[in-house]
């Protein structure tokens, strides 16, 4: 029964850590994209596409972590 509680704790902490990483990553992308757009407004659409792809890839990795946390919490 004690181990059971620790698994929930681990799941919660893991979810939070995954979100920290993804938040930092996507925040960096958004910051750089905003900067790039401000410097070169004519490249906006290219920058947006690149930004979305990179954000999706980072998000994908974060979601792997979240899925593992959900599995940990449910099992």
């Amino acid at each position, binding site marked *: 029964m004690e181990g059971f509680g620790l698994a929930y704790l681990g799941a919660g902490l893991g979810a939070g850590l995954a979100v920290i990483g993804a938040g930092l990553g996507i925040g960096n992308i958004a910051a750089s994209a905003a900067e790039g757009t401000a410097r070169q407004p004519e490249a906006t659409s290219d920058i947006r*596409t690149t930004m*979305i*792809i990179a954000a*999706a890839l980072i*998000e*994908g990795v974060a979601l*792997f972590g979240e899925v593992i946390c959900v599995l940990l919490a*449910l099992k």
Partner: protein
Amino acid sequence: MKRLSVTRSKAIFKVFAVLLPLLLSGYGLAAASAERSSGASGNMAVTPAVEAVHGGAEAAPEEEKAGDVIMHHILDNHVFAFEPFGSVELPRLSVPAAVPVLGGMDISITKHVVMLWLVSALLLIVFSVVGLKYKTLTARQAPKGLANAIEALVEFVRLDVAKSNIGHGYEKHLPYLLTVFFFILFCNLLGLIPYGATATGNVNVTLTLSIFTFFVTQIAAFKAHGVKGYLQHLTAGTHWSLWIIMVPIEIIGQFTKPFALTVRLFANMTAGHIIILSLIFISFILKSYVVAATVSVPFAIFIYLLELFVAFLQAFVFTMLSALFIGLATAHSGNDEHEAAVAHH
């Protein structure tokens, strides 16, 4: 202009040629998952077994109940519930035991299978209407209403997704990309209407879609480079002494791409629903109207609107990455193209 609209309506019709096998295999995989869950619960019926597992600990009834409802909403099951008005029990079917390999396999029609059928019926209707409309238009006429909205999306996929990522010869892959885009989009959106279920929130459906992308990518690579070129591609253009490391990495890389596509779409669509339901259940757990009015409902509406955006974004991302993988597989340059492929793993 006229020629463009003709090719476009042709592309729209080609979409349906791809739709049927997709549907069938999505159905097969959903059935396979139903079989797995029934296998795990032994001879018991599936739904009571799942409830028994989740309602196992009686210590915290409120939270257990919340978890129950959320899991019931997320997971595939045999009941199509219209809560205050009752529910529809979906038929449970299985392959007759006499059939050699598949004997006894559960091929029940589940909630998500119904949603898949609904989505494909909707797609057929919408695109038949739109496609027929283009035949009545003259070259100088702009479409109105639904046709205009669909045209905007089709043009977006054609120019911003297919052309910019695949480049030369993108027309061949356009029907597949359009099918995937609109199929995922409609699945996502139907999951957001009340009583709907998100078929893309089922990992079997997303896995099927990514397997299609996988095969399209591999076949495109074979067609573009031939068998010799394909095998050369696996060595990544490195010295032969490095092949023992590079070849396995490249082969694994081929499989991680569809896996990432699968989990991304599945987790995105599932997570949104879990968050909305959790926010609603905060007020039930705390038993407070104030919390319901100030936290649950406003935040749930906010997340709901965000989900509306995510429905489009994930359809776009899936299509975009499919196009990107096809483009990388068919690109004709040597090393720089390969570096780009590595960067995207």
